């Protein structure tokens, strides 16, 4: 009885979570005619890819924003992983004057909200003449994030000292030690940071909205938003766009969900 009740409530939660996704994806696979003439709950009949074809066609050209978003995410991902590993290693395993003060400063910058930095960064980037460029999209994030450094530092602190000493005795320099010892034993946490970084920057909206204009460097979120405001009655096309903006991440998340779930509990409990 109690078990059945629990399952019922859990299933209700699942329906409430999934229904909007399923309805909007179903709409993305309907022809505009079927969408206009039949009730919402009828499944796509027949399912059509015409919305996606049109979305990636000449008129809406979603190929470009998808490619820009992918490039931005890849460059930020590589930069964040490399530079966060560097910084976290220094904070976790080296002793040097100013370490604790610097780490405190890094942590303090977690409190700086994005909406506060966009105006001054816009001014600086405009002065430098790099507004509306690829670099404008990646520069603020590519040098590592305080969150990532914090996450890795906690993990690196737990690596047995013997392991690092052995590498040093073998004559390995710092970079070799990091690459051959630290990185291999830290794979789970690096995977976690990688997913968090991909999710954050695939989803980023406010900064790209502000710093780019026109189609050239438009990312997916900005393109989706522009599509919504221009064609907000063509819901089949708009839902195809949200599907493209959402689906790749869902797949990544479902493939690696254990890492993400664990990372949340790590940062939650310290």
């Amino acid at each position, binding site marked *: 009885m109690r078990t059945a009740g629990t399952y019922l*409530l859990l299933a209700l939660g699942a329906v409430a979570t999934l229904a*909007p996704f399923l309805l*909007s994806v179903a709409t993305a696979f309907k022809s505009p005619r079927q969408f206009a003439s039949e009730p919402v709950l009828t499944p796509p009949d027949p399912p059509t890819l015409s919305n996606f074809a049109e979305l990636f066609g000449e008129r809406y050209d979603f190929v470009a924003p998808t490619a820009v978003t992918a490039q931005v995410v890849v460059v930020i991902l590589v*930069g964040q992983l490399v530079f966060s590993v560097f*910084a976290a290693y220094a904070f976790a395993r080296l002793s040097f004057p100013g370490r604790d003060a610097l780490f405190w400063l890094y942590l303090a910058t977690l409190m700086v909200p994005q909406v*506060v930095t*966009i105006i001054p960064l816009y001014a600086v980037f405009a002065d430098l003449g790099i507004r509306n460029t690829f670099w404008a999209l990646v520069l*603020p994030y590519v040098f590592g994030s305080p969150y990532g450094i914090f996450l890795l530092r906690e993990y690196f602190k737990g690596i047995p000292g013997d392991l690092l000493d052995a590498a040093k005795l073998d004559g390995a320099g710092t970079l070799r030690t990091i690459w051959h010892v630290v990185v291999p034993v830290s794979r789970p946490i690096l995977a976690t940071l990688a997913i968090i970084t991909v999710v954050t920057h695939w989803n980023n909206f406010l900064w790209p909205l502000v710093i780019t204009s026109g189609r050239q460097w438009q990312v997916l979120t900005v393109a989706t938003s522009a599509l919504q405001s221009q064609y907000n009655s063509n819901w089949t096309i708009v839902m195809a766009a949200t599907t493209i903006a959402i689906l790749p991440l869902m797949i990544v998340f479902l493939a690696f969900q254990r890492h993400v*779930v664990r990372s949340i509990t790590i940062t*939650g409990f310290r």
Partner: protein
Amino acid sequence: MRRRQETRTAYLLLAPSLFGIGAFLVLPILVVAVLATQRWDLIGPRTFVGFDNVVAVAADGRFVRSLLITAGFVAIVIPAQTVLGLVAALLLNRGLRGSAAFRVLYVLPWICAPLALGVMWSWVLAPTDGALNALIGRRVEWLADPVLAMPSVAAVTVWTQVGYVALFFSAGLRAIPDTVHEAAMLDGASPWQRFWRITLPLLRPTTFFVLVTQIIATFQVFDSVYALTPDGGPQGVTDVVAGRIYYEAFEQRAVGQAAVMALVLFVLLVAVTVVQQRWFARRTTYDLST
């Protein structure tokens, strides 16, 4: 000699992130303070105007209104998602088969772009051809009605975040040793008593952590509100503070005034963090999570 070398290595390793954090997180705070004393329209030259922007923002009233609107938004979203998240976590932690799958499923909205979710929900809540009105068979202006717009936007936010909150509570519940509950059961405590007297007090560190981080994050809401109710919504009822700053700077082109607002928001959020940290530090005596 060795020490000096270690210091050199450390600073070489730190150089990129020091540059990044200095240039893109610390320097902007200084620049925004300078911009607050200038008049700028995003294109032309900047001119020094002293405290004119502060006076203009204070006289305008829309900024204060947006702060109140945001506080109201937080006051709806936080209690709702905390209670729902806790209930979900309690259900998920009964040790039933399939719980892990439900837990992952509930987190799905949280990993999606808030902007894309906002666009998706703007269809679900659309008046004539939206999914919700089709299902209930009535035409309700969820997002265009000045009374309904704010609760609707808040509901979408709660829907997005409940699974994430549940994840924390779920971990917190697992950290409570079974022996504590067993002892209480031997003493004849009812499930209800055990929840109020044991579970809830032992969850206090989790609860505080969730409240602190979520209040700060929710206060900065922008993407989903922008997609659901552009330009501050009907009669400006969903004009949240992050949106106010964005519109002021990039649509009104009153950058100086937007910079003043940004500074005020920054100071406010730091104050909230500091106060809550203090309170948090004093109240964590129940921590059994290790």
